[in-house]
């Protein structure tokens, strides 16, 4: 792996933002809208009855972390789509660039925009709703690492599907985070789900992260099982990452045989 080639892929995305700052809207606008909307919903729900349940704590924390996953996944996907829209594949893949370097460049881009979005939203959540995501403490580090790997895996899978099925497959990519949020225990405990859906939830790394955070926030004295749950989440995330990479490579090899790389454009599918 040659870093200058990874950096070239990253730099191309950075130039796109620099040349057209309205692209920042795609990174931050949805995040801001979501955090503000859910912030007010949480505040409103918190006014009901004599509830001691911290809606703001649970909902906003979940929203911030799930938006982080979503931005990572969509950051990968939109960077990949940019190369389709500008018919740039032939230029990239006829150069010494390797697939691992190309994907690493996209990962570098999505981690940059994902973290930027995370910090901005964390600041707004603190200023507007008095919510401090960093109260989760050191647990935030492994939690975000697992969510990051999972987000990258989803991004690679969606990019692979687009590479295999054509640019219209991007419509599969946009709702994937929303669909997965049903099983990931983002807004409610996994135990809320019926048995069959709970099995699916157990196969999703993010569910271990959100269950752990919910447990710790509701009862900070509980420490048993946290490390093992996070470890399962991390192992699953790494398995997904490996699987996603294999999928992308197999689609690339297929496209190398059928000529799709040279002719890859919206019109060719």
């Amino acid at each position, binding site marked *: 792996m*040659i870093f*200058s*080639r990874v*950096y*070239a892929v990253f*730099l*191309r995305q950075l*130039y*796109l933002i620099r*040349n*057209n700052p309205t692209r920042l809207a795609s990174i931050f606008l949805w995040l801001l809208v979501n955090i503000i909307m859910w912030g007010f919903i949480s505040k409103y729900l918190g006014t009901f009855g004599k509830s001691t349940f911290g809606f703001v704590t649970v909902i906003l924390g979940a929203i911030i972390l799930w938006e982080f996953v979503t931005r990572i996944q969509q950051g990968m996907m939109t960077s990949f789509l940019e190369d389709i829209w*500008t*018919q*740039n594949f*032939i*230029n*990239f*893949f*006829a*150069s*010494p*660039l*390797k697939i691992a370097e190309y994907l690493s460049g996209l990962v570098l881009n999505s981690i940059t925009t994902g973290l930027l979005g995370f910090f901005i939203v964390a600041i707004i959540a603190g200023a507007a709703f008095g919510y401090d995501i960093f109260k989760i403490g050191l647990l935030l580090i492994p939690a975000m690492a697992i969510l990051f790997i999972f987000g990258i895996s989803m991004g690679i899978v969606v990019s692979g599907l687009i590479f295999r099925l054509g640019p219209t497959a991007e419509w599969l990519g946009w709702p994937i985070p929303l669909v997965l949020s049903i099983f990931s225990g983002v807004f409610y405990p996994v135990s809320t789900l019926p048995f069959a859906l709970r099995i699916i939830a157990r196969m999703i790394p993010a569910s271990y992260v959100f269950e752990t955070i919910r447990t710790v926030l509701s009862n900070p004295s509980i420490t048993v099982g946290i490390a093992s749950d996070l470890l399962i989440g991390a192992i699953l995330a790494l398995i997904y990452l490996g699987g996603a990479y294999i999928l992308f490579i197999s689609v690339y*090899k297929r496209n*190398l*045989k*059928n*000529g799709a*790389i*040279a002719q890859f454009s919206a019109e060719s599918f």
Partner: protein
Amino acid sequence: MNNEVILKTVGLTKQYGTIKAVDHISFAVQSGQIVGLLGPNGAGKSTTINMILGILQPTDGTVEIFGKNMVAHRSLISRGINFAAVYAHMPPNLTVRQNLRVFGLLYGVKKLNYRIAELLDEFDLEKFASSKAGILSSGELSRLSLAKAVINRPRLLLLDEPTASLDPSISLQIREKIKEYVDKTQTAVLWTSHNMREIEAVCDHVLFLSHGHILLSGDPRSLPSDHGKRDLEELFIAVAREPLSLKET
């Protein structure tokens, strides 16, 4: 010309289902040589170029560049080759300078700032350095594609219709730039074009493709008369319309 073989294809074949787009073609390009790959639309020129570039896997046969197999050593070989093609657009939303920087990094160009300045000067792109590629005229865009194509000082340059859609004056300008570059660097060039006057002017050798086969090959200045034709254009038309009557024995 030092006669070093830079590119060699042996039995190169590409088959899509029952259709053979390229059928067992073998040829070589030497250092400092400009070889024209000619033929009507659908003859297999771009398919051949794509296999040489390593973005299309041959069904059979081999591509050897610098004595190494392209399929096995794609990334390593790609450092020493480059291309410009009418269908390979430069990212339109990056400026000229940004494009050159991105591709310079991809090709591992040393002293990149210096090289970019050199190319901007050489291809008269200085005043467009901060303009986005998407707003350049066809001629300016072709110059940018060529600047990108030589950024790594390739020893093998693949040009797929580099002057298509350009007016005769700009075509001439581009042609001269390439010729000058080849004379200076002894780069091996494989060039496809539908402009026969251009081919006559720049190529040392031509290969006529028809239905994926090499039908004719030779010196572009003597080949027409060898086959009873006035010029290369007349020969091209004959290849396109009556290939069987021209088949080399």
